[in-house]
């Protein structure tokens, strides 16, 4: 989802901020470092750290964005537990499309990764063939949205 949303902007995809919070500062996404800091503070910080992170998001992105960011944090505190609690595997298309990224970002080391299914060679080849078309489609979606 993140990769797709960045590709609609025609920008270079850098997903390191997902697993390395410090790398978020190099992201092309506006306010990325503040948002990642807000997530980390909320999930593991004390009240003062959360307040400081909140102030940073508010000053960089505004009060309404702060509220929406808090809601998205709440949403995924729910979704990750649904996925882990029910043991659902990755949907086949996502499993194939994210195989390289998961390896690059170290997501393969997560305990829950044991639930993934193996990607067949034909699926890998098909994904490589489709990938350029998907990028064109996403950029078209981005251009259409910006009109």
């Amino acid at each position, binding site marked *: 989802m993140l990769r797709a949303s960045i590709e609609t902007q025609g920008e270079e995809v850098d997903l390191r901020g997902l697993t390395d919070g410090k790398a978020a500062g190099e992201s092309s996404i506006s306010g990325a470092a503040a948002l990642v800091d807000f*997530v980390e503070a909320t999930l593991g910080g004390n009240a003062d750290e959360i307040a400081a992170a909140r102030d940073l998001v508010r000053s960089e992105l505004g009060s309404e964005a702060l509220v929406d960011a808090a809601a998205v*944090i709440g949403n995924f505190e*729910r979704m990750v537990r649904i996925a*882990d609690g029910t043991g659902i595997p990755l949907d086949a298309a996502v499993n194939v499309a994210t195989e390289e990224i998961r390896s690059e970002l170290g997501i393969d080391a997560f305990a829950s990764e044991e639930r993934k299914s193996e990607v067949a060679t034909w699926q890998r080849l098909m994904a490589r063939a489709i990938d350029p078309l998907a990028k064109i489609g996403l950029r078209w979606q981005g251009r259409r949205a910006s009109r």
Partner: protein
Amino acid sequence: MTVADVFGTLELCAVEVAISMSLDSAFQYAAQLEDPIRADLVESHRRSWARLAESGTWWTGPERIAIAAASRAAIDCALCRERKEALSPFSVTGAHDGVSGGGSEGLVPEAAIDAAHRIVTDASRLSGTWVEGLAEQGVSDAHYVELLSVVVSVRSIDAFHRAMGLPLEPLPEPTPGGCEPTRRRPPTAEKTDAFVAMLPSRKPPGEDADLFPGPAPYVIRAMSLVPDAVRWLKDLSGAHYLSMEAGQMFDFANGRGPLSRAQTELIAGRVSAVNECFY
């Protein structure tokens, strides 16, 4: 003649939902914050509290609230901290802190309390074998799915509060005279490639047709053994993230409000990574 004679059991429950929906005094954000909280967020949170107070499909209202209380107690639980550090979360035994509280001791099986704690503090290391073992301890797969929906719904609202610097909302009182759980198991649910049975990907038949319109990803179907858990999920997700029905999920170029879609997904991905969830 009683109300049940007039409306029947199903409708009686609907009346009780309407009564419990009068939780208008809950989630008074405007009095606590200067940041503008969207009305749909407030409404979704109030509906969640109304659902929580009601009988579900497998647990009664008091039982659901006891489960919610246990999930909150997990945050400061010493046993959970010890387990989190252990090589295997199943190698450490003991009693959870603040097991029930609020006079709800013994209301639900110990296995349910343990499940609520594990879902909150160490979800990425849960296993199918463990879920199967719960049945022998009084928590069937359907009980477990409903328990999961209670825990994750409360957890998500609590996380929003924590992020915004708000105190936790007091849990609701059970709806007086709540109806009995219906214990309805969707006939087409089957156990395939997850810990629990789910509805197949195609549009569900009959009274569950509203859950999803057609081929649905695992994450939508995950709790479909208890259809009301999916309805609760859709309600909260529509307020917290994106509507699961309005096509917003596949519009990668637009966010729903001031956050761009990329900013939204960055937050989503970082929360998942911190929780060590690969999904």
